[in-house]
């Protein structure tokens, strides 16, 4: 119940912050946290809900967020084979991959759907995402352990 409330809180907070800080995805670091906690059932449903929120509230054709989340999820499990996941270095690498995946997914969708997208805006979102992804993950990680599991081991 506590965990359910936590994820609902993150979802609502994510929507508010999306309005406040343009171009930042507040859900992907939370999804990674879900993977790290090996809560795959929760990650699956939350992933679907967050993808639907992103796709529904977005103005580009359907598919970009789905591709982006799938790519980041794949790279998470790929990197997990070689690196420990519960540290900031891993998250920084994943953050870089996430930004690149975002750029590629936007490029694929805009090319397929023949829409013109402001490249500077995409670059700025990528850069913002790269720098804020580890910060957001660290905040979620800290709060999750503080509120839900009462264990903190950030590094």
């Amino acid at each position, binding site marked *: 119940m506590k965990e359910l409330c936590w994820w609902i809180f993150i979802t609502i907070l994510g929507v508010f912050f999306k*309005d406040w800080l343009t171009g930042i*995805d507040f859900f992907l670091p939370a999804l990674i946290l879900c993977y790290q906690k090996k809560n795959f059932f929760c990650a699956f449903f939350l992933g679907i809900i967050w993808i*639907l929120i992103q796709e529904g509230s977005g103005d*580009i054709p359907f598919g970009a*967020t789905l591709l982006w989340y799938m790519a980041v999820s794949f790279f998470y*499990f790929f990197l997990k084979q070689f690196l420990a996941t519960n540290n900031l270095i891993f998250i920084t690498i994943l953050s870089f991959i996430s930004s690149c995946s975002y750029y590629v997914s936007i490029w694929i969708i805009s090319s397929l759907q023949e*829409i013109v997208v402001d490249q500077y805006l995409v670059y700025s979102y990528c850069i913002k995402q790269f720098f804020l992804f580890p910060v957001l993950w660290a905040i979620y990680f800290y709060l999750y352990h503080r509120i839900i599991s009462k264990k903190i081991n950030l590094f």
Partner: protein
Amino acid sequence: MEKIKFLIRWIILLFIIYLVLITWNSKTHTLENFANNMGLEFVGAVLYPGKWLKFQVSQFWNDYIELRKVREQNKKLIQEIKKLKIQEIPLKIKAQEWERLRRLLKFKPLQGWDFLGARVLCYRLGPSNLLNSFVIDIGSRQGVQKDMPVLTPDGLLGKVLKTSLDFSTVLLISDSNSRVPVISRIHRTKGILQGLDSTFELVVTYVPITSPLDVGEVFLTSGLGGIFPKGIPVARTVKIENDPTSLFKKIIVRPTANFSHIEEVLVLKRHNLSSNKSKEDK
């Protein structure tokens, strides 16, 4: 080696799943519609009470601050009211005259169209918002449909890009994916208005070099595309460039509506002809 094989299998599987989903969606639009109804509706439902609460709190705080100044202002205002009451008498007469003239003119803008008022809820939301768009607080339940024109009293803003039950996304004419057929007010020169991803400047293309046009002339919607009604002011000509190597003029225009401070908008809805006919029959 086994790990690599396993990963390759996963890549292929994910790729196939993605392709199947996208292909199915492009045919049926099921996922897209579901995402619109669920995602946009959820975002709207979360943001709407939040914004209302923020407004109420800020208003309460402002009221409290203002209350401290009210006493001094009250004395001044009582004196001012006395003066204004005397000044009001000729204005009342003028207002009555204006009302009579308005009735005489019977001005009917945009025949065959209805207005739906809407408030702007938010602008760019998250990394999936890369176009010049905003969200308004009316949707398909209130009769909003895709491609409906959106405007302010100053001019055209754009059209409805997608709708959910209670919220809609509006694509601005300043977006580079937007095209609006326009005609100039005085010289009746036709062209296609295109966005440049800037809120201050747009461009009118396909205007032959021989077509007459003046700087400052206003472009109106021509009604040719079938989406926008004829005669809505869109933009004012700022710069005309004649390139001798081109067959067309390069016309830079500035939108008549102010894109930076949009709070309330009007959504144009076509009259339902069949229902009108049935009403007439009755």
